[in-house]
């Protein structure tokens, strides 16, 4: 029995197979409409997350399965002090697979150690969010046709953004990847990513402070939100915040086939005028998120659909 805790749990070959399956699901949804008939997904969400939870639920419903679960710790036995280990033992009797989000880092790993059913980490604090990374990879591969030989711009909060760190770790396994890291000084990529991951693996990268300076170089622009509370003072925030807001004017500097991705929710870092640009891929990304979660559920439940 396999679980998914980190995007790196899958080898590149396994990931290719998973993304192939997600592609096929996207192209032939009817073929998979009853693949999980009689199976149940438990969504154990100890903190609210509308998007991820609904994406998992939509994935299982699309496969003909059913869904049960809770959407906050208050409405679960955790409020009575039950441990994660005990909860998963009980959930194992109710469902066939579990997607768990927890504010404590490592909680899904604890669950997987006691679980009788596959556990998917649906986000554990600031640690891992592997299905977001799988979504990003599927989006890039589907819209670009490949995962190697790309210049990827990562923009915004590169210090605390776990999606960015996960994506870097996942993408360096493909040849010809270059990164352009665009952030204010305060939110630069941490040294354990810059040195231990990028430099240690000889991955070419440059750092920039202004988005417009690098727009023409990018194949992919991955936007994240710059939060005011991350700055030491208001002055710096006011000085820098506009550099990290994607506008139509900045899009005019980009290549015609560049893609804009964002893990969502978007607040104001992408101007709504960009939404109609064909290069804005962030809402399509949400659709790919459902396909990749469907592929993941089938893979972990070891269900093969023929024809």
């Amino acid at each position: 029995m396999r679980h998914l805790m980190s995007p790196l749990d899958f080898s590149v070959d396994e990931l290719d197979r998973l993304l192939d399956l997600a592609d096929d699901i996207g192209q032939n949804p009817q073929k998979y409409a009853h693949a999980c008939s009689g199976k149940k997904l438990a969504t154990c969400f100890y903190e609210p997350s509308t998007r991820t939870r609904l994406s998992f639920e939509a994935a299982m419903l699309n496969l003909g399965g059913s869904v049960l679960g809770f959407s906050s710790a208050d409405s679960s036995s955790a409020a009575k002090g039950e441990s994660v280990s005990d909860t998963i033992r009980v959930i194992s009797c109710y469902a066939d697979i579990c997607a768990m989000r927890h504010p404590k880092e490592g909680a899904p790993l604890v669950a997987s150690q006691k679980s009788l059913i596959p556990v998917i980490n649906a986000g554990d604090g600031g640690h891992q969010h592997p299905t977001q990374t799988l979504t990003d990879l599927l989006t890039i591969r589907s819209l670009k046709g490949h995962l190697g030989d790309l210049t990827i711009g990562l923009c915004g909060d590169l210090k605390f953004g776990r999606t960015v760190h996960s994506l870097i770790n996942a993408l360096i396994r493909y040849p010809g990847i270059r990164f352009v890291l665009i952030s204010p000084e305060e939110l630069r990529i941490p040294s354990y990513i810059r040195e231990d991951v990028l430099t240690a693996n000889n991955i070419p990268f440059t750092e920039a402070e202004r988005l417009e300076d690098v727009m023409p170089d990018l194949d992919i622009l991955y936007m994240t939100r710059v939060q005011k509370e991350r700055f030491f003072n208001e002055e710096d925030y006011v000085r820098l915040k506009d550099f990290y807001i994607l506008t139509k004017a900045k899009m005019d500097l980009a290549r015609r086939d560049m893609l804009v991705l964002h893990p969502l929710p978007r607040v104001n870092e992408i101007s709504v005028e960009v939404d109609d640009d064909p290069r804005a891929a962030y809402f399509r990304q949400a659709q790919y998120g459902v396909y990749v979660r469907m592929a993941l559920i089938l893979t972990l439940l070891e269900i093969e659909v023929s024809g």
Partner: protein
Amino acid sequence: MINISGIHEGFVLDHIQAGMSLRIYHDLKLDQLDCTVAIIKNARSSKMGKKDILKVECPIESLDLTILGFIDHNITVNVIKDDTVVSKMELHLPKQVKNVITCKNPRCITSIEQGLDQIFLLTDEKRQIYRCKYCEEKYRSSAR
């Protein structure tokens, strides 16, 4: 000078950094072992100035010294049998350290989950880096 007699079977842990012997006593769980232990603090050492020494009289198979490699791989371990030193044990960094150090990350599941072992894994042998198995936070010795 205090004289402490030799041991028939067991271990002599020499060149312990002065002041560290009690920590090692606890980390080796010697308090739970029914054996004779001599703790020598601040012994004179030409190499170290001051050092601690632990003498443990016990069957040699009854004590797991793996954790010593994590605490201080410069400790000399003499294995004693029939009143003589039969070997010197080389210390290595253990792949895993269980219930010796605790994770200081307040966001880690180990901070709330009952009965969960504190496990650290050796993730970079060259740089001697251990990370919490659950949250992957790096262990910093000053945090202990």
